[in-house]
């Protein structure tokens, strides 16, 4: 088979932080090529470079032997490289046919004409989609079909899928697999990103595995098996001392009283019949890849999202059933959620460290005077800055001027001031420097020792292994497996998290 597209020494950095380092990638004509790797391994970046969505910082691309350089996706599309995104790029208020021909309409556009053409196109692909239906009325699978039909209509020779099966039901997945095989028969090359190892093995001709922005292995699917793939995905080089797997299993904290019991909670098709419990005095780690519903579950517990009104399940806090419409009563009951995205929903960026910390105290209404006291605010800031070792040039520094680690400490401090009984950390060390990671981990351990119920959500395996007294694994909107630290290995956890 001839090579259709080849990428050589592709490097991409975002603000100096490398996302891809010297990655080579070849795509043959008419092959199905799976891309695997943990979150942040660089799969999405690589495919975006292929489709011209982002330009590479360095490296060369060759299409049928001639060098190409894309500055925008339409240039890639002209050569027949189309990308189907995870979030579909369709206009929800327009019909299927209008979306298929978007940007290609005649000046005097007659709907009848495009409906007939769309019907023929969809029939030739064997898609059961009505061309006159509006996109908003379609489910995820059918939307994906429309995107694929659009790519086919544009004579795409390479179609790239970013996690195509993440939101599909088993039935829809089977349709998708059949479609990929049909595209392959028609000589189209397919690249797809997936977390599902079985899917990659079953569907693809070749598999490429990335880890930490570097190319690990490319091989025929026939030469790989589940274990070798998972090993290649998690095999770590630079964990170092920070993530030394804690040897002292006897350090595992025994559970105290049950703080939280979640029974069968559901929200749309993101969280499905999720059940688990959290105990005081220990760290419950939840591992899951992006899209596994772990953040949504946490936000339901904290009252930020509402679970389904009917058949939404039960949540019990220390034995009392609760249902929060807004976060405030949850915070009053002692549940706080420390966000994974501190800039958009964590701190107040125009305000100082002191004001941010003081916001926690004001919210609970436990301040000494009924009015705002500058003196109390300063004292609070001093106390918590030294307790959490928040370093800033001066106490009036605005939070946005701090480093990621210090910002995170401010957000954590603000939450701790609210005196929670249950604290949920979502990706507590994302975008945090190495020194601060150790400090935040110590803090999390200390909170559990003090008897709080602590939940740590992370997609970074060493973090989960290092911190947790129980390890829960989330996949497709529910907790699917539980490990004790003694029995857990990175391979076992990853095995449960992919499907």
């Amino acid at each position, binding site marked *: 088979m001839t090579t259709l597209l080849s990428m050589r020494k592709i490097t991409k950095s975002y603000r100096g932080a490398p996302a891809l380092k010297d990655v080579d990638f070849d795509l043959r004509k008419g092959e199905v090529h799976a891309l695997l790797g943990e979150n942040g391994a660089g799969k999405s970046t690589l495919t975006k470079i292929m489709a011209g969505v982002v330009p590479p910082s360095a490296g060369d691309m060759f299409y049928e032997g001639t060098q190409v350089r894309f500055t925008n996706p339409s240039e890639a599309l002209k050569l027949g490289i189309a990308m189907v995104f995870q979030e579909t790029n369709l206009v929800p208020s327009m019909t299927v046919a209008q979306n298929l021909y978007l940007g290609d309409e005649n000046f005097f556009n007659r709907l009848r004409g495009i409906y007939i053409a769309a019907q023929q196109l969809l029939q030739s692909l064997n898609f059961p989609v009505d061309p006159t239906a509006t996109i908003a009325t379609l489910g995820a699978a059918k939307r994906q079909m429309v995107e694929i039909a659009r790519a086919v209509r544009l004579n795409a020779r390479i179609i790239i899928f970013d996690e195509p099966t993440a939101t599909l039901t088993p039935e829809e997945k089977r349709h998708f697999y059949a479609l990929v095989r049909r595209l392959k028969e028609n000589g189209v090359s397919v690249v797809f990103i997936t977390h599902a190892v079985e899917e990659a093995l079953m569907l693809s001709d070749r598999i490429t595995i990335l880890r930490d922005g570097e190319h690990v292995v490319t091989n025929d699917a026939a030469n790989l098996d589940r274990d070798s793939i998972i090993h290649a995905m998690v095999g770590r080089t630079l964990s170092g001392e920070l993530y030394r797997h804690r040897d002292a299993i006897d350090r595992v904290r025994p559970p105290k009283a049950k703080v939280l019991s979640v029974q069968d909670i559901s929200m749309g098709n993101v969280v499905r019949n999720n059940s688990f419990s959290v105990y005081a005095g220990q760290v419950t780690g939840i591992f899951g890849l992006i899209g596994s519903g772990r953040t949504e579950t946490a936000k339901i517990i904290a009252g*930020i999202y509402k679970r389904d009104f009917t058949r939404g399940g039960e949540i019990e806090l220390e034995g009392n059933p609760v249902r929060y419409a807004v976060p405030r009563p949850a915070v009053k009951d002692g549940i706080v959620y420390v966000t994974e995205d501190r800039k958009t929903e964590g701190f*107040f960026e*125009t305000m100082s460290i002191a004001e941010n910390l003081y*916001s926690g105290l*004001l919210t609970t209404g436990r301040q000494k005077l009924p009015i*705002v006291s500058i003196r109390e605010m300063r004292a609070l800031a001093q106390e918590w800055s030294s307790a959490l070792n928040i370093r800033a040039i001066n106490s009036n520094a605005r939070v946005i001027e701090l480093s990621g680690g210090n910002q995170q400490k401010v957000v954590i401090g603000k939450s701790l001031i609210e005196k929670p009984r249950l604290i949920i950390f979502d990706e507590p060390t994302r975008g945090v420097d190495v020194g601060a990671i150790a400090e935040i981990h110590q803090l999390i351990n200390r909170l559990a020792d003090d008897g709080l119920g602590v939940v740590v959500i992370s997609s970074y395996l060493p973090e989960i292994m290092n911190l947790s007294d129980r390890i829960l694994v989330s996949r497709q909107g529910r907790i699917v497996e539980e490990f004790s630290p003694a029995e857990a290995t990175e391979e076992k956890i990853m095995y449960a998290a992919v499907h």
Partner: protein
Amino acid sequence: MPSGGSLTQDPCMNIRSHIRQETVVLLLAVAIFIASSIFLNGFIEASNIVTLVRGVALLGILAIGMGIVVIGRGIDLSVVSILAISVACMLQLLNMSYSLPSALAITLAGVIVMGGINGFLVAYAEVPAIFATLASGTFVYGIGRSQWLSGDVVYMPDNQTGFMAMGELKFLGIPAEIYFFLGIAFLAFLALRFTRPGRFIYFMGDNFAAARNMGIPVRPVIVLQYIVSALIAFVAGVIMAASLHSMNTRIVNSTLLYDIILVVVIGGIGLSGGKGGIRNVIVGTLLIGILLNAMTILDIPDLYQKLIKASFLLVALIADGFINPRDEQTDQAGDI
């Protein structure tokens, strides 16, 4: 700070440009005042200064209410309607020989209900503030004018001598309006700076999602904001009626609302919320008040005045967009 290098740039500039905006506006106000005193006949005369101060005070009071809402990342376009209709209704009640306290109580209740409806629409029904208040303002004007009031202008009954005297009240030769303005400004300053709801308004304006997630009662605070805004509009209306001895509901069709927004934006309260304070309202009021007065003395035709004000507002809005950029994450369709 090695890792925060790129981040340190904008906010510092942001803060610096904020200070600069306030100072620039104040200097501009002083410059226009001095230039007008020198070049404009009759500007510095006592009678004109009294007019100027009255206009400025009224605009300033209304801008304080608007400023409070804008800091919380909202906007209230119904203030002028509430001002006109509430006070006109009060005068109507007085004409129907209700006593002043009972007329006042009835109107106050109505004003609080109106502000509450605005707040409910924005906080609970989650209608974008700009549309909710535009609609409610038009509704109030429509229902007031068609159902409750007999004409455009409602006059104060002659027996309300105390009320009328309030309009003539002077202290140290300065009209009482200015003391009301300064008093309300001081109260608003204290409320924003030193009370929990005041701080909550800033937290909400700075980062609404963060404020909500950490358990700040965002919905009640939003409702409170609009009630305060309506009450301030009512107070401004009462002061206006006291000096004019009547209330002309046609004021709803004037450019007063745009003047208020102009004051708030020019003063440096970013429409993206969480920034600025009462100080910004005061400097904005000074500039716009002096400008409006100078234009009147110059006898610039009304149409041109509108043109000049609109240009000012546009420039201020564009400048606001540059100084307080909104990123994709805070930007939402429909809100202002």
